[in-house]
């Protein structure tokens, strides 16, 4: 026989009635100071799922409720049936189990971020129809044209000369996948948009001292196109966003910032990885065409010395940067020479 005390709430009045519960076999006897004891079949009573530190609630057939702190008695009389609640309760009750879960969580999150997302995004990005990619690229270019780009101010001669060099360079390298475009933007830059649009700014063209340097820039952007980096960044970024939303689901109010920071850090990490990948592609492509990656290093050096070059962030802020450190990129180029 098991006996324990509890408080009965009848669901009609907001007042509790202290009761004694006696369980004998399949019968449960409920007695109080003011009512006749009554008998209820044990399997007619539904116990809630146990949670450490939370009083147990027993629901009686008529909608009445008994609240009790007799955890052991309730657990032995009404053992939780569903597997999920049993497993959760078992881990929650033990510090070592909960902390093991924490370590495993950190490991799984790291696996997802470092391997699963990049690994999964790659084949997906290749399967996206070229029409969709081209459309996205066109949309992006239109927005850029309306906001930060102006028509190129290069002479027609210069443009034609560069396009000829470019045509020679990409000949036999699945040239129909890329399209070269020049724009005026106020600073040296080059970018690869989805669908293979490679934009080189006038200032970038003027910053290059010879054809080899121009081709190094183009080769880097072709690396982005070949690797579908724009698409993969979108996919991986979305994956991180979903993961962070799931993990920080109950971050309250202002602490939500704490969830945004890792998302930003991971995005820039992916971006840096893609930059290095595009660099590698560029070095290999330059060598295939009998050019030296030294041109890439020379140009990076010169860009760094320009007045309008952004200052290299110090060590901590490096993690917020979308590009690897310039010095590192120069060194890698020179090693490939």
């Amino acid at each position, binding site marked *: 026989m098991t006996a324990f005390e509890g408080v009965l709430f009848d669901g009609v009045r*907001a007042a509790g009635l202290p009761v004694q519960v006696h369980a004998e076999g399949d019968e449960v006897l409920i007695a109080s100071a003011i009512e006749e004891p009554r008998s209820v079949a044990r399997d007619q009573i539904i116990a809630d799922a146990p949670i450490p530190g939370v009083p147990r609630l027993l629901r009686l057939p008529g909608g009445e409720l008994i609240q009790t702190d007799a955890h052991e008695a309730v657990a032995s009389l009404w053992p939780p049936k569903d597997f999920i609640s049993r497993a959760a309760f078992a881990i929650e009750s033990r510090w070592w189990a909960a902390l093991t879960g924490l370590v495993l*969580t950190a490991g799984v*999150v790291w696996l997802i971020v470092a391997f699963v997302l990049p690994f999964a995004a790659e084949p997906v990005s290749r399967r996206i129809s070229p029409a969709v990619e081209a459309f996205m690229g066109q949309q992006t270019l239109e*927005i850029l044209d309306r906001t930060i780009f102006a028509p190129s101010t290069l002479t027609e001669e210069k443009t034609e000369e560069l396009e000829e060099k470019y045509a020679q360079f990409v000949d036999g390298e699945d040239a129909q996948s890329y399209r070269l475009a020049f724009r005026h933007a106020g600073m040296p830059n080059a970018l690869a948009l989805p669908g293979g649009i490679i934009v080189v700014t006038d200032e970038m063209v003027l910053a290059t001292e010879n054809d080899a340097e121009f081709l190094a820039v183009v080769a880097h952007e072709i690396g982005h196109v070949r690797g579908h980096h724009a698409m993969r960044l979108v996919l991986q970024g979305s994956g991180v966003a979903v993961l962070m939303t799931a993990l920080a689901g*109950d971050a309250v109010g202002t602490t939500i910032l704490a969830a945004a920071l890792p998302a930003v850090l991971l995005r820039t990490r992916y971006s840096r990885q893609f930059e290095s990948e595009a660099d590698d592609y560029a070095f290999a492509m330059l060598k295939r065409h009998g050019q030296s990656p030294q041109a890439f290093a020379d140009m990076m050096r010169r860009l760094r010395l320009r007045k309008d070059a952004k200052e290299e962030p110090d060590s901590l802020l490096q993690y917020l940067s979308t590009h690897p450190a310039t010095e590192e990129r120069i060194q890698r180029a020179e090693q490939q020479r």
Partner: protein
Amino acid sequence: MSELSARGTAALTTYRFDFIGRTGEYFRIWVVSLFLSVVTLGIYSAWGKVRKKRYLYSHTELDGTGFEFRATPLAILRGRVIALVLLGGFALSGHVLPIMQLVFIIILLALTPWIVVAASRFNARNSAWRNITFSFSGGFWEAARVFLGLGALAVVTLGLMYPYARMRRARFIIEHHRFGDTQIRADLMAGGFILAYLLAALMFIGIMVLFVAAMVGLVFTAGAAARHQPSGMASLAPVAVLYVAYIAVYAFLRAQIGNLTLNGVVLGPLRCRSTLRVRDLVWLYLSNIVAVLATLGLATAWVTIRMARYRARNLYLIGEATPEVFMGTATSAGSATGSEVSDLFDVDVSL
């Protein structure tokens, strides 16, 4: 009060809310929720949510009895799946076709009244105290008028009508709630809301003026001496200052609007009394952010517990009757979809 003494029953009693949850216990429930959610690809998150809410509810006590959260994990899971499909569509649409994002925002706006009503109904029906449940009876069209109609009015008046819209939102939510058989009343005036937002706006303008003045002064004094740009971490300092100022204004509004709203809640013979203080909230918010960032998010459980404790210990029920006068009535559970959609998209359905 004069009314009470006239009737000769001046016995006003104060009933305290309290929160007696413990960080260590809650931390384990939180961690297990995180862990099992990750290894079950999010499916467990519905169970985790129910267990966390049950822990928090049951340790929030009024007159010595804890509250009860009754929702079933399956109802929450169903809502989460729908919310996730919406969120996924929203996130992807923006990348493929920016115009789609606009369409999604319009759809979401049109859904707002439904989300508010469904979430309130679900949460009310699944909240109980002493085996008596809450219920919510607000309708879609009234919600549309209050949230969309007055929201639009606030926009076209460049925010001037926002305090009024905010008050009407709070009133809509409060006065459609019942506790058992007792209809809850809202005793709210627009005046307090207008004053609170006016002061917040003045604080904000004052901070911006001071900030710009300080920046200009800094640039002139430092710029003349050494012509070098503030580099690296130093350039983050102004951002940090602005952030702290933003938190202060935010805390001010939370305390003011929270007190105004809760003090307007009348349950039959009892009335709520809320005593949130701005300086307490500033401290809590700032230390929360530091703790969460410094522990890579692990302090989230501690933050939840201390906020629940602060809120509960600053809330009272005052009146000439005991809470035992409330009577119950039978209700059924609502759909969880509204609640989950509002969770994921962070639609403000709070008071």
